[in-house]
């Protein structure tokens, strides 16, 4: 399997009034054309890892890495303009809540066309046609109607499909999905995941799926990275997750209530200081 992304010793630091906060502390992994899950609690650095790859870290933060290589391009050395041409084109990102991540004053169709025309020279009518095709590809039943709707006029699930359509219209090779289904209902969640799954498989993309939901990630991804306090504590094949070795991963799995398992009280995660070491 060819390697699409190589991350070695990635660190993200935020200077604050009370000292430097180490959000990501030496994360290393490689990604091919596969589905990689990154799981962790809030504050574990999983989102900051994704944002650093995408180039969305706030300017006052300090990013260092031994290697941050996307298909032969050193992401830390390239100019801002080159980075911009990658972002949304060859690397795309789906954010958590379509209510906040879509432009509220622009129709859905225009937003998708804007993304496409930023990266490719296509005529208006061609762009419109491709946007409509993409909306159909994310299983929106009536693309012509949804094209002219504004984000507040559609449901969460529909908004997230529009977001996926917008991100995939340029045919990216790497897709970073940061909690793409957390704001959605369980049943809608699975529909959106199925669409994502099909597109990733058909187009041979690499996918980084960032989530706090261990169960969801293990059922969706090939490989899972578990993060705690800014670094990786365990990397494991998704199907072996129930045999996780690290006590943090086990603790996370055990503390979730399960239908049919009658454990009262629920086991509590006993945080060990050496996990953060």
């Amino acid at each position: 399997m060819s390697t699409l992304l190589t991350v070695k010793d990635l660190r993200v630091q935020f200077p604050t009034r009370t000292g430097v906060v180490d959000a990501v502390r030496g994360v290393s992994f490689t990604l091919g054309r596969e589905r990689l899950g990154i799981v962790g609690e809030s504050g574990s650095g999983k989102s900051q890892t994704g944002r650093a790859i995408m180039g969305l870290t706030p300017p006052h933060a300090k990013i260092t890495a031994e290697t941050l290589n996307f298909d032969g391009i050193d992401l830390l050395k390239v100019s801002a303009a080159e980075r911009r041409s990658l972002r949304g084109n060859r690397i795309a990102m789906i954010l958590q809540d379509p209510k906040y991540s879509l432009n509220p004053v622009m129709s859905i169709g225009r937003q998708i066309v804007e993304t496409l025309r930023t990266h490719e020279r296509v005529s208006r009518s061609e762009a419109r046609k491709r946007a409509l095709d993409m909306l159909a590809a994310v299983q929106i039943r009536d693309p012509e109607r949804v094209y002219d709707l504004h984000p507040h006029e559609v449901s969460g699930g529909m908004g997230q499909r529009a977001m996926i359509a917008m991100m995939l219209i340029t045919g990216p090779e790497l897709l970073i999905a940061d909690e793409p289904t957390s704001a959605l209902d369980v049943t809608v969640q699975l529909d959106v995941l199925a669409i994502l799954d099909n597109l990733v498989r058909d187009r041979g993309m690499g996918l980084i799926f960032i989530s706090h939901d261990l169960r969801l990630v293990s059922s969706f991804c090939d490989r899972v990275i578990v993060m705690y306090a800014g670094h990786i504590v365990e990397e494991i094949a998704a199907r072996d997750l129930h045999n996780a070795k690290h006590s943090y991963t086990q603790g996370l799995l055990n503390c979730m209530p399960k239908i049919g398992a009658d454990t009262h009280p629920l086991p509590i995660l006993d945080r060990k200081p050496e996990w953060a070491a």
Partner: protein
Amino acid sequence: MTISLSKALVIDKLEVVFDRFRALRGVSLDVMPGESFGLVGESGSGKSTLLRAVAGLAPTTGGSITVNGKLLGKSRTKAFYREVQMVFQDPYGSLHPRQTVDRLLLEPLAVHGFTDIEKRILRALDEVGLGASFRFRYSHQLSGGQRQRVAIARALILEPSILLLDEPTSALDASVQAEVLNLLEQIRRDRKLTFLMVSHDLAVVTHMCDRLMVMQNGAEVERLSAADLAARKVTQAYTRNLLVASDGFVRPDIPAV
């Protein structure tokens, strides 16, 4: 009515209409004292509206609510709020950002004219596992789990008999969720409280509740016991779909092209 006297909460054919939208379409349920009852459904199913209607936060247009044998009218009395308290979903939004924990806990006591304020605040903090050191902090100095503990302490400080819980753990990490769920269970045991709990998470509801109701489009789909749900003895397709969905993603077998 002699039957409803023995019940903690009886809701009969409750209707809620917002403008012209019928959010609740004649929902009925009854909860025994000390019981924990769960409401499950997707967003827009009316589960939170039902809870808010009981608390007096949603406009009811029909049906009745009876709490501990007393029929509720249009407005809620002070005595009602000593009986029934609510814990909201988002602990980041439900605590006043410019009030200390002490001030937050003092307010309900002052409203209801309690005199042993000092003792009660310390006991409430102790009960939710926070301790006196948290008393003069602001909510931004607390983590999500700690905030939700403060919200629970605020609800408990008036010693209610019924607690309305609107997705009390959905904004929290799984590990913190376990701690808060354990705390709620322990409080219910110790104080013999009645819970009416809303959640979109079937696993959480079956863990916490004895009986539950599945809702969709403002109406009841199915009422069943947690044991039946665990044994997958469900009669409605909608409930079955929810059960399948809560198992996680299943990749359809597609032959390689």
